[in-house]
């Protein structure tokens, strides 16, 4: 799993944000479109794409997109 591929999948969960606007250090909770539906979508995407079950607390403990990527990596 590459960080860029993860960022692409992450960006897919938003309606108005393009992957090119995101990078590893993006603080995703500060994004205008971030809400509970997007959070659930990110969890579901990670389950579908990477076969990893994330918890709500994992989302809370992550600040940047790369933090989330690292959490997914650590659970592989």
């Amino acid at each position, binding site marked *: 799993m590459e960080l860029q591929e993860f960022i692409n999948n992450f960006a897919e969960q938003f309606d108005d944000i393009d992957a090119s606007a995101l990078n590893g250090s993006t603080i995703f909770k500060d994004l205008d479109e971030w809400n509970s539906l997007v959070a*659930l*979508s990110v969890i*579901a995407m990670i*389950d579908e794409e990477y076969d990893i*079950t994330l*918890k*709500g*607390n994992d989302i*809370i403990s992550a600040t940047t997109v790369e933090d989330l990527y690292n959490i997914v990596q650590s659970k592989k």
Partner: protein
Amino acid sequence: MIIMTYNPYSLEGKTVLVTGASSGIGQSTAIECSKMGASVILTGRNEERLSLTLEKLEGTGHSMIVANLDDETEIEKIVEMASQLNGCVCNAGIGLGTKPAVFYKKKELEQIFTTNTISSILLLKGLVKRKKLINPSSVVFTSSIEGNAITTIGNGMYGMSKAALTAYAKTVALELAPKGIRCNVVTPGMVKTPLTAPTGELTQEQLDADAAKYPLGRYGNPQDIAWGIIYLLSDAACWITGTVLKIDGGITLV
């Protein structure tokens, strides 16, 4: 001392089948039914947990049937083994976590409808065909406010299966009325059970904040629902069929 002899809510002398009886609302319903005088037939998948429920029942004449309602032949086994019934609580149900609609998988949809909707439909079909429900008798379905009175993101699969169950219950209430079989539904709000135990998508803080929104100040306990089910099973509800009884701490008012 006043000896209470008048109690239209009593289940004395009634035999009641409860599905999903090894935990949660089903277990509590089984226990409360026994306290109200019923002979209870428990069903559930897990023999060990079902035995623990059996031990908790008061009085005598109770029994258990270990069966997986997802399997049609096991439903047939329940129908076969059940004695004549005055009541049936179609309560078995599962949740599959919280997930947005664009991520649903066919397998998950089939699973949740099989367990939450189809199993109760087939069980009641069998009981009626084999004339196990006497005239008069009462069937109660455990549905949910989700899908019936409220809609929340991520809970669509569960809500759909429960809304379908409610729709079915109303039809079958109409069709079975001539046989003296009443069919009613309870729609609980959030009740603290193994099914609703935090699976992790939501944090404890989010759950606490949600519980605080309930006008009566808390999530439900399984007993809160069991007592409503007992009312619908009892002779006190003899002129009630096809109704949907919301037991939700007032959450659908807000």
